[in-house]
Every structure is written in structure tokens, then in C-alpha cells.
């Protein structure tokens, strides 16, 4: 693969992560525990949809032809989507949403900070914008981790269950494949496997402060980058793509 094909592939992966996670967040709109939180979750969903657009737009310019951001979002099937599994899991209760968001954002912060140093200027610029948002997201998520972990017995129980259910999906955040290796070698993308220790330290600290226990599970689910997803992604895409699929090729 040429460099630009590899970079496009990387950008689509990042776009998929952001779109699918943004979709799950947007399912909270009008369903949050109170109005301020409805506004906040909708706002974070918008950040992720915006991030997806930036990555897809860049991928489209690299791919050339007729591709645009919507081509990636609306015309590919689940097997072609390359998001990490943690992003697609159904939204669950508020505890699950907060834990997922925290675990992901705590990874995204050092990741985007590293990607800001990319030799590819466009990726570096997208990462800089994402990093600003992620700083705010992590602060928000951490506050919620503490409040819900150290709140009531019920909230603590829900948070521990969410953490335990999610833990096996965090390993995939740090996986590196041939696409990554080629780009890492050229200084275009960071080596995520090197971010794991830092992530684990941050996350362990928050979990301890939140009166929760670090899961000791040794299971790991992976496959998202290769299009091997959980069964929920097909339904997510069926919904997301429904209008485009029913009326292909039109402008909206």
C-alpha cells in the first residue's frame, strides 16, 4: 500500500471510532438523568460526530474520486467498518456510558497528544482539535466516575458492573497491526502499544479514588479493525444508514 492509502485507512478507522461512539452518545438525547446532562451528552456526541467528519473528509481527499465523508459513513456495511468494539457496544445504563467514555477518553487524550506530533500535518491538525475536546471530556468523565463510584451503594454497584463488563474491550485500544506498523515506522502515527502503561496508571488511580476495584479479568475481545464486530453494529448501521440506503445517491 502507498503511504496515502495507509493514511486513508488509518483516518477511516479513526472516523469509524468517532462516528460509532458519537452515535451511541446521541442515543441519550432526551433520555438523560436530568436536563443539564442531556445538554452535555448531546454536546459530546456532537464533538465525536465532528471528529468523524474531519477524519473522513481527510480520508476522502486521499482516496480521491467521488468519495466524501458520507460515502464512508453511509455506504459501507458492518464488515467494512473498522471501529474498535468498545465504541459500538449498546449504550447500556448511565453507568455503562460513563465508564465506557472514561476508559476511551483516557486513552484518546495521550493518543491525540501523540498524534499531534505526526509528520502528516493534516492528521496533526485534526488531533490538535480532538485533543482540546478530549481534555474537557476526560475532566467530565472523571468527575462522573468519582461521583457515581463514591455515591450510593446502587451507583457503586452499577459502576463496578459496568467496569467489569467493559474491561475486556480495553485491550484492543492498544493493538497494533501492519497498517499501524508501516505508519509508525514513518513517524506518521504513534505506537498505541506504548500508551498502555500510562493509560493503566491514570485509570487505576481514578478507579481507586472512585472507590471501585480495578477489574482483574484476563479476557480480551478484539477484531474491530478487521471488521469482526459484535452483533450490535449491524443494527446501529441499519439505523444510521436507513435513509441513504432507502434512497441511494440523493442529496439531503
Amino acid at each position: 500500500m502507498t503511504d496515502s492509502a495507509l493514511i486513508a485507512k488509518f483516518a477511516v478507522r479513526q472516523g469509524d471510532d468517532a462516528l460509532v461512539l458519537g452515535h451511541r452518545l446521541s442515543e441519550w438525547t432526551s433520555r438523560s438523568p436530568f436536563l443539564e446532562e442531556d445538554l452535555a451528552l448531546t454536546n459530546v456526541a456532537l464533538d465525536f460526530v465532528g471528529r468523524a467528519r474531519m477524519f473522513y473528509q481527510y480520508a476522502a481527499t486521499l482516496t480521491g474520486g467521488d468519495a466524501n465523508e458520507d460515502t464512508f459513513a453511509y455506504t459501507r456495511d458492518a464488515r467494512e467498518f473498522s471501529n474498535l468494539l468498545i465504541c459500538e457496544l449498546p449504550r447500556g445504563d448511565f453507568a455503562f456510558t460513563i465508564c465506557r467514555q472514561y476508559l476511551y477518553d483516557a486513552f484518546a487524550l495521550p493518543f491525540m497528544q501523540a498524534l499531534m506530533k505526526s509528520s502528516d500535518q493534516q492528521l496533526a491538525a485534526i488531533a490538535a482539535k480532538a485533543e482540546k475536546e478530549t481534555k474537557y471530556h476526560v475532566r467530565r468523565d472523571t468527575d462522573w466516575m468519582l461521583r457515581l463510584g463514591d455515591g450510593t451503594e446502587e451507583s457503586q454497584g452499577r459502576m463496578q458492573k459496568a467496569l467489569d463488563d467493559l474491561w475486556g474491550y480495553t485491550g484492543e485500544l492498544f493493538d497494533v497491526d501492519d497498517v499501524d506498523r508501516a505508519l509508525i515506522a514513518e513517524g506518521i502515527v504513534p505506537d498505541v502499544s506504548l500508551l498502555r502503561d500510562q493509560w493503566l496508571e491514570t485509570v487505576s488511580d481514578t478507579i481507586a479514588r472512585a472507590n471501585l476495584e480495578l477489574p482483574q479479568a484476563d479476557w480480551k475481545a478484539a477484531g474491530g479493525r478487521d471488521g469482526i464486530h459484535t452483533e450490535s453494529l449491524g443494527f446501529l448501521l441499519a439505523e444510521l444508514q436507513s435513509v441513504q440506503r432507502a434512497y441511494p445517491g440523493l442529496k439531503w
Partner: protein
Amino acid sequence: MNDNVVALPDEHKFQARIDAEEKIEPKDWMPEGYRKNLIRQMSQHAHSEVVGEQPEGNWITRAPSLERKAILLAKVQDEAGHGLYLYSAAETLGATRDEMIEALHEGKAKYASIFNYPSLTWADIGAIGWLVDSAAIVNQVSLQNTSYGPYARAMIRICKEESFHQRQGYHIMMTLMDGSDEQKAMAQDAINRWWWPAMMMFGPHDGESAHSAQSMKWKIKRRSNDDLRQQWVDQAVQQAHAIGLEVPDDDLTWNEERGHYDFGPIDWDEFNRVIAGDGPCNRQRLAHHKKAHDDGAWVREAMSAYDAKRRAKSSAA
């Protein structure tokens, strides 16, 4: 002079302040009826913003392009924000948000009846933005001069954002009318279903409106229902025609003498039925709001418990 007026708490002096176009502020004396009327209207307005998230939120996950999705998310986020300003403004009158939400759940407080209609296609998101938000703007612009200061200021902020909403709704309709036959049919179907409910948003005719006369006297309301409705019809008809949409009203004609459109009779039976709770979606809208509130109870309890623990720790330290 003003100090004297404030120092003499009686309805006569209060009315004199209103007549002089002074703004009433939270700590000023006001008749109990004025306070109650305002709480009713402002909480109804706040609930409308919040319940209005449902028909639009219904299409966030299915928006047909990423740009439309982002715009719709931003719009619904604004609506939630408007709900917040309005609850806060109503709280300055001594009503708590919990009480207002409880009144909504018990069916004592209303919200805009228009949100009891279903959003069935993507074109409905265009129609809601264009027709419903423009009707809201016509009403809210007149409320920028309402006599209660916090309400007037909330309206000024809200109107700025609503005009963006209205434009995005109209832009969706324009794009559809510029598209395939199916898209045009979708747009026409949407205006067919939303036109009359939007007309009803302005409420009953002036003579039949339960709260109108007193609200006008107190300048809570600044213009009559019929007056606002006419202004809206005049602008919406022209916008519809400009993009090739037909207005679903056989009696619609331009009246040269009045300089306004004449329009057909509104189905007040339907209006009353929907207000009374028997519209197509009333039950789902309330059930949805209640479920979100009930599902979130443990979160709110955890927040209070966490805050209490923090306070205990800091006072022990």
C-alpha cells in the same frame, strides 16, 4: 418616583409600572395572579423546549448526512439549553424545577401541543424547523418585550438561536424540493401534516383564549393570538410557494384589501382533543419524559450522596 411605586405594594401601582413599560424584577412586589400566570406560561414554555427534543431526537441517529446530523445535534442541544434558561427564569418566581417537572408528569402543566404529533420522515425535521420554529419565533419576538425582566431577557437570547433553527429547517425543505420526485413528495407530505398543527400553535382566537385578556393587560403577552398567527401565515405561505410547496388550505387567498392572506377555519375540536391529552403522541411523550426521569433517579441520588460526603469531609477537616 420609582422608589415610591415599589414601596407601595398595591395592584394599582403595579399596573402603573406595567403601563410605563417598566420591567418587573424577581424581588419586586407583584400580584399573586401575575406570578402564577407567569409560572404557568414560562414552565409551559420550558417543558415545550424539552419535550420538543423528542420528535427531533427521533431523527438524530437517522439523519441522512453527517452534516445534517451535526446540525440537528446542535439544534437539539440548543433546545435543551433554552429549557434550562426558561426553568431558571421561572425559578426566580419561587417555583422549583422539581415542582415544575412533577406538574408536567401529573398532567397539570402543558407543553406545546405541536409536539404531540409524530415525526415520521426526514422531511418532518425540515418542517418542524421551518414551520414550528418560525411560529415559535413570531411568538417569542413579541415576548422580548414582556413585562417580566428575566423572561424578556431569556427570550432575547433564545430568539437569536431560533432564527438559525428556522433557516436550517427551511434549508432541508429547499434541498428536498430541489431533489427527486420521492423527496418532493416527502416534503409535501410533511407540510400537509404540520401546517395545521403549526397554525394552532398560536392558540385559540382572541375572544376564546382563557388567559389572554389579563395577560395582555399585564403585558406578559404583547400581541394577540390572531395577530401573531396572521403574521406567521403571511410569511410562511410565501416561503412555501417560493420552493414549490402547496399549502394544504383550499380557502387560502390573498386579500388585497387587508394586505394579508385569508385562510380556512381551524379545526378547534382537534386542537382541544390534543390539548386534553388525546393527540397522536401525548401518551408516548409523557411516558418518555417520565421514563428518562425515573431511570435517572439513581444518578441524581448518587450525586446528592457524593456531595453530602464531600461536605462532611470538608467540615471534618
